[in-house]
């Protein structure tokens, strides 16, 4: 990026970002320095991409006019800890309105690809149209600036995410990679393809330890464009760590923001996996398609029980001190570490474990590994499978697919393999479409067409206003459970003021664990921007930009045909309240109606004019 101002909030057009546009049909490649329209553009990520998506009329995700936008955030590749995010944006094949229009979507992941991409000198890469043959894209740093090449990828066809990355590493040993798996290649029947991002650990160990931009089918969109992988080749650029950033980083590692995520050995909570223990206290761990039974079944996947039989190693992203990964490996007879299986994060573990009736850690790990290698979103996959299992449980004489039921590991494994290979569109197209085709929609656990995360909807009416997936674009999932808030005022305030700020991380290039509770409108971020780029931006200006970007996402949903009635929780939650969840009921029809009225009364006036036409650049 080029900065000709120190005050980007007042003078955003004096900040320019380097965009490359690749026309996959003609092979034309062009570069341009683009002036920023506002602070959202400067911060980057979806704050910028959604403004560009809003300029297009897209009626189906799989069309030439739907771009795939790959970009970074302002702090991606910086010295600020966790600054490793890459963003993939486009109109989603899986998330869509009842009117049949696709929703704008972004997905993000860490790994080292984002930093390497940024270090090539490029800030954004837009893919237009589709390639006639499978290709990969080489993004390379040269003395004359970034260079982009489209290269044949027929040799990568049919390989898993990890195998693609390993194959490309042989050719580009100093690069990092973003790759789709077979799921993305089979985009016609699989709308939940994700993008795997390579990590230093993966490239050194040769073990399948990718990070994922999973949500919303951005890997399927990439597959539709016939792009199998991206290669970012650049030298590492670590500026001298300033005292200011050093202080911030120390605060990230030692401060409250990431405390729960740190390993147990460092006095932390042991990663996101620890959510199991907390939620189980309320019998709110999703089980058998989001129907906790008030029993102790979820405890089988508690860390204390898993570590008896498996090796658990805490590892971190590149140069990150948070060390949030819990990598599970087989344990050899002599107690030493055996074959690597998978990384246990709360979401994949629950949705490909307890929530489909799998309570054996080794089986859950194998399913996560399969999902990752085929390159699918673990949330969408797990929740769509759990819907199918619930259907079969309700219709024992008239089952669907292979007749799998909760806990049937062999049959569930078969479903995942077939879905990954594009042979099972019933699962691959997500729970909304499957449930509509079967005429039983009430127990399909999606909101606005995108499967919800592993937090019971009974605990989070805020799901309805999340703009890019259940928990990471609306931080209300802990408002009842963690904060004990069950009154309307707290929920209205949570949704419309405080908790929407979680999306700021998906603009600036930082991981949410940088400071998940406070967002990016903080002195820590202000200090990083000053130190890294000599920018003077106030915390208030950052918060205003984040709010504006969130509201734009909401406005885009409405423009894509969502009615207010679609901003709702799965019907089963209301129609058949779960008596086992030990928390106040905040999903009664009366509570939800009141919440809806008050939330829209605040949001609606602010949406006016947000999508006003902007001249194409």
């Amino acid at each position: 990026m080029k900065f000709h101002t120190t005050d980007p909030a007042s003078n955003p057009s004096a900040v320019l970002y380097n965009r490359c546009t690749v026309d996959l049909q003609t092979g034309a490649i062009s570069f341009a320095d683009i002036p920023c329209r506002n602070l959202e553009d400067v911060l980057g990520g979806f704050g910028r991409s959604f403004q560009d998506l809003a300029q297009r009329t897209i009626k189906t995700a799989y069309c030439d006019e739907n771009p795939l936008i790959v970009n970074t955030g302002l702090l991606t590749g910086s010295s600020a800890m966790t600054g490793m995010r890459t963003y993939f944006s486009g109109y989603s094949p899986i998330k869509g309105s009842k009117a049949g229009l696709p929703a704008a979507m972004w997905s993000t992941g860490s790994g080292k690809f984002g930093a390497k991409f940024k270090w090539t000198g490029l800030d954004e890469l837009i893919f237009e149209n589709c390639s006639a043959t499978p290709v990969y894209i080489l993004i390379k740093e040269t003395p004359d600036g970034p260079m982009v090449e489209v290269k044949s990828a027929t040799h990568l066809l049919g390989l898993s995410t990890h195998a693609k990355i390993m194959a490309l590493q042989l050719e580009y040993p100093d690069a990092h990679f973003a790759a789709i798996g077979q799921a993305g290649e089979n985009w016609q029947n699989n709308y939940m393809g994700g993008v795997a991002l390579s990590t230093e650990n993966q490239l050194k160990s040769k073990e399948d330890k990718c990070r994922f931009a999973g949500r919303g089918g951005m890997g399927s969109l990439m597959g539709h464009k016939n792009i199998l992988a991206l290669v970012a080749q650049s030298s590492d650029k670590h500026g001298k760590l300033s005292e200011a950033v050093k202080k911030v980083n120390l605060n990230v590692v030692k401060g409250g923001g990431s405390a729960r995520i740190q390993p147990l050995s460092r006095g932390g909570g042991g990663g996101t996996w620890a959510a199991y223990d907390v939620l189980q206290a309320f019998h709110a761990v999703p089980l058998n398609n989001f129907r906790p039974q008030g029993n102790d079944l979820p405890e089988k996947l508690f860390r204390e029980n898993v570590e008896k039989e498996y090796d658990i190693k805490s590892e971190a992203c590149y140069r990150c001190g948070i060390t949030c990964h819990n990598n599970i490996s087989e344990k050899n007879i002599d107690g030493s570490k055996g074959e690597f299986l998978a990384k246990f994060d709360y979401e994949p573990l629950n949705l490909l474990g307890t929530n489909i009736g799998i309570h054996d850690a080794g089986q859950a790990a194998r399913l996560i590994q399969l999902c990752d290698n085929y390159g699918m979103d673990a949330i969408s996959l797990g929740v769509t499978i759990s819907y199918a299992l619930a259907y079969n449980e309700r219709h024992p004489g008239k089952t669907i697919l292979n007749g799998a039921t909760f806990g049937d590991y062999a049959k569930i494994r078969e479903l995942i393999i077939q879905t990954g290979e594009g042979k099972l569109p019933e699962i691959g197209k997500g729970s909304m479409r499957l449930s509509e085709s079967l005429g039983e929609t009430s127990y399909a656990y999606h909101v606005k067409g995108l499967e919800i995360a592993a937090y019971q909807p009974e605990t989070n009416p805020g799901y309805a206003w999340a703009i890019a997936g259940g928990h990471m674009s609306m931080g209300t999932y802990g408002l009842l459970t963690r904060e004990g808030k069950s009154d309307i005022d707290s929920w209205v305030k949570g949704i419309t003021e405080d908790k929407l700020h979680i999306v700021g991380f998906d603009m600036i290039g930082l991981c949410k664990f940088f400071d998940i509770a406070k967002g990016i409108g903080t002195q820590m971020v202000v200090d990083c921007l000053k130190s890294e780029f000599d920018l003077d931006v106030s915390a208030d200006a950052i918060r205003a930009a984040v709010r504006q970007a969130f509201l734009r996402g909401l406005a885009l949903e409405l423009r894509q045909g969502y009615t207010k009635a679609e901003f709702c929780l799965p019907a089963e939650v209301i129609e058949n309240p779960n008596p086992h969840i030990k928390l106040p009921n905040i999903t009664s029809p009366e509570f939800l109606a009141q919440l809806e009225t008050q939330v829209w009364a605040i949001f609606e006036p602010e949406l006016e004019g947000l999508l006003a036409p902007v001249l194409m650049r």
Partner: protein
Amino acid sequence: MNIKVRLFGLFRIDRFKEDIRSIPPGTSAQAVIDDLQLPATMLGIILINDIHAEASDLLSDGDCLTLLPLLDGG
């Protein structure tokens, strides 16, 4: 007076899952937390009789005090 204390997650390490403890009248949840030497940065949720409570809340005979670590996104 006696209260029941329930611990979850990492708080159980080298402590217990559930314990009956004798405390003098007027004891706050914070005093029990201090006595158990739970790390302040990790304490996320306090429940008294399954209802969210504050550390300064006073305990009564027969209460069940549940102490949970932080919960943040996954």
